[in-house]
């Protein structure tokens, strides 16, 4: 990773004032900001902004900074570096570290891959009523309602952007592939349920 050296040697592809501008703006936000939003405010091409953000992130990592710039849930945001967690925990008020139960994790997985999905479908896949677990996941902001199924009128559920943040994913496209764990024609079989 030579981001830092490259930047200092002026090899960087980005204009000199773009990076400080990005750093300054990201210092005042409290949620991930999309590249396109930053590009609009700074009146720069989105691609250029994306390159600058990635270079910054690489610089921080190369220099071993205690903070990190990461793309999560469709936007960029400053984070502390994982290695510093034990120290940071002492300063962060009531961090939500309560672990999810096995049932909650399984249900979350089904919702993530089958969204929007009804409670009945989740129950069919898990083989057990999952209403209580879905309520818990909703209360913890990981899952939310997503309208109703036009046919059955059942309430549908999907994951939230907070879910992406908690898993450190840029988007749902980054969910691990389910296929390696599944037989070939299970999709078809599942439809029969």
């Amino acid at each position, binding site marked *: 990773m030579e981001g830092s050296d490259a930047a200092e040697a002026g090899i960087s592809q980005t204009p000199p004032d773009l990076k400080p501008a990005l750093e300054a703006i990201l*210092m*005042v936000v*409290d*949620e991930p900001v999309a590249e396109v939003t930053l590009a609009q405010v700074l009146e720069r091409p989105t691609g250029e902004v994306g390159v600058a953000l990635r270079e910054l992130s690489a610089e921080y990592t190369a220099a071993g900074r205690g*903070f*990190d710039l*990461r793309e999560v849930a469709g936007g960029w*945001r*400053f*984070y*502390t*570096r*994982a290695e510093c*967690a034990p120290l*940071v925990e002492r300063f*962060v008020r009531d*961090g939500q*570290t309560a672990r*999810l139960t*096995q*049932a909650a*994790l*399984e249900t*979350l*997985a*089904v919702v*993530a*891959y089958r969204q929007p999905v009804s*409670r*009945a479908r989740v129950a069919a*896949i*898990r*083989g*057990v009523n999952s*209403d209580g677990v879905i309520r818990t996941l909703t209360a913890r902001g990981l899952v939310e309602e997503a309208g109703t199924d036009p046919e059955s*009128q*059942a*309430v549908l559920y999907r994951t939230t952007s907070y879910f992406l*943040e*908690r*898993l*450190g*994913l840029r988007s749902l496209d980054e*969910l*691990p592939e*389910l296929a390696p*764990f*599944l*037989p070939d*024609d*299970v999709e078809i*079989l*599942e439809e*029969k*349920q």
Partner: protein
Amino acid sequence: MGGMTEQVADPESGEETPSGFRVHLDVFEGPFDLLLGLISKHKLDITEVSLHKVTDEFIAYIRSRGPEWDLDQTSHFLLVAATLLDLKAARLLPTGEVEDEEDLALLEARDLLFARLLQYRAYKEVAKIFNGRLAEEALRFPRSVPMEKRFADLLPELVLGIGPEQLAKIAARAFTPKAPPTVSVSHIYQPLASVREQAAILVERLRRAGRATFRALTADCAGTFEIVARFLAVLELFREAAVSFDQVEPLGELYVTWTGAADGDVLVGDDYDTSRSDGDPDAG
């Protein structure tokens, strides 16, 4: 609940242990979970698993739990037991040659079940990955610091868009407990027989006869739906302490004896008839 466990898997490694019949109640999170557990204990492919062994063990297990089981858990078990029996039935078919339609249907059912088990296992695997990511991600804290005052003051003037009245309405809505979500079955369940009406018939007959078999009491029923309604009515009357039951042997004749008052109205709940009473009271 922990007190009754034979071998409590610790939460970290529990999911990793393929062997060992975990008698931890976590196992009952899903019947599929248990089924997978049972199969993996025998370290066999599902198509080769010695199902009678698993089934026997399973039944022994239910027995050993004795009367402490609640209905919910027992019904989960029954679902698994039924599944196992399906599997066993499919297993007993001669392999290769499929002669009649029923055999084919059984094989299909087995494949479908197998696919569902694999599917469930896939989500279980992914849930493990989720757990790892959540733990890893919990080490990184996002910056969420209030904006410096000089910038906060520049935020566009807030458009509140509501007055005190609307605020009160929104608050009231938030404070109103959300009704537990229910699936409407009104479009599929059209009661053709009213439990209340059937109860009235039963009360009249039992007061006259004193005692009768359930078979006799339902001899004149027009169809299954009416037998079901009459059966529910018997249960309701039992709840009102207006009847008692005796049955000499399992699956033998069920005798119903009138124990209620000789006259007067017997009130039977109309829990079963809501869609009817909500609709047209003169129906029927």
